């Protein structure tokens, strides 16, 4: 009985160049797929301005090159932002506390400038990965 069962392996010949070619083709396709599916870092440093939760604007800082751009914000206490390719600051604010002005330049994704009297948050996204920080939150 066992003698009548033919193993498929018995028919198999040695792999040819064709076999190798197909294997290489599949592997190459897999590598291309892996490359396409890789997590793409959001590498364009962008400043987002929110007033009381509402998005006022998002500025792609990486487009600025060597220029410095000024943005006037129509806030309860008017503010002036300065944008450069490597960061943003509040150059002027009519707010009473001036904490936003004193924060100075921020340049890394995850950093924020907060103006409490204006309920305004200027935050950076994209750009150099700030997750290199070895903490989740700063107290103080």
């Amino acid at each position, binding site marked *: 009985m066992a003698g009548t069962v033919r193993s498929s392996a018995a028919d*198999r*010949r040695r*792999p040819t160049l*064709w*076999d190798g070619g*197909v*294997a290489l083709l*599949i*592997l190459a396709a*897999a590598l291309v*797929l*892996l490359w396409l*599916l890789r997590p793409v870092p959001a590498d364009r440093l962008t400043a987002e301005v929110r007033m*009381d*939760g509402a998005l006022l604007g998002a500025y792609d800082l990486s487009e600025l090159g060597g220029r410095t751009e000024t943005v006037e914000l129509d806030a309860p206490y008017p503010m002036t932002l300065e944008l450069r390719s490597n960061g943003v600051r509040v150059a002027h604010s009519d707010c*009473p*506390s*001036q*904490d936003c002005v004193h924060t100075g330049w921020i340049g890394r994704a995850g950093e924020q400038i*907060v103006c*409490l*009297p204006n*309920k305004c*948050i200027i935050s950076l996204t994209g750009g150099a990965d700030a997750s290199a*920080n*070895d*903490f*989740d*939150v*700063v*107290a*103080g």
Partner: protein
Amino acid sequence: MWNRHLSLLLPVVLLTGLLLSACSAPTSASAGEEPAARQVFAMNTIMSLQLYGPDKEAALEAAVDEIGRLDALFDRNDPDSDIARLNAHAGDGSPVALAPETVEVLSAALDAGTDTDGAFDVTVAPVIDAWGFGTGDAAQYRLPSRSELDGLLPLVDASALHVDASAGTAWLDRAGMEVDLGGIAKGYTAARLDALLDGYDVTDALLDLGSSTIALRGTNAAGDRWRVAVKDPKDPDRSLLVLSLSDETLSTSGAYEQCFTEDGVTYHHILDPRTGWPGQTGICSVTVVGGDSARTDALSTALFLMGPDEALDLWRRDGSFDCVLCLEDGRILLTEGLEDRCAFADDTDKEDGHGWNCEIVRR
């Protein structure tokens, strides 16, 4: 011939699929999960909430609502708030009906005052206003005269604040007295939010209630304890150390916040209710870690004003909190409960290379 090629192709495709799935699989259940996150302006600060778990979106909405509700009760600058009404009736002898939460936070404040021999006093508002620290508006900061403060100190007296928990009322004995919850409201809010989250399937949360009070639940997205950096009081732009925390609250008080300089002298906002003056105890920042959020918040102010010896005496007696005291002489006193959960920012362990020396305080 193509059949043979196809028979070869199948295992290759399977292997490739396996490789791809291995590359994209998360390392743990929560890893890679996006939190439900929101920033809200409340209690004169900005609060950042991050929640993880199946109910995170609904819980976030409820948490934001709760913050708004408590802020409306506690804000003494809002004439309709519980605290403004309590203050407005100071000295007229009439008990003021309050929300249960206001009664609860006032009771917690009185307890904190008793435990700290008056270093924490929720009736310190008249002195805060004399210095202009009440509004967060730097333009209002001013140096009051000694005689002005001496005139106000009789109004700072927690024993003249009465809370009737069963009736849901409170009153202040003397006209001109005022309650300010700035030293405890955020901690109490953290406790309320934690209780609220218990009603939802929220596995992990970071509740940053204005950076001076941070409540942690569960673990961070990597499955580790939350890592909270504490600022260097000598250089607040850098962090001094990182504490690994879970299911507890951290509160910090530092002399570097809300301060002004006049005639070469720097005055900060942590005012001693017994003298009316900024605390000068040799401490430049206090960080308290504990399970009772309201008490943790109040203690961060009180320990600063008690000075290192009294603060550590309380730590030894109490047993419910740990703390980090940064002293002006460059010493960091770290209580032993935090020893294994503290990493210095530049990994030099006991001495951080920026003029600080760490001593572990044991019971």
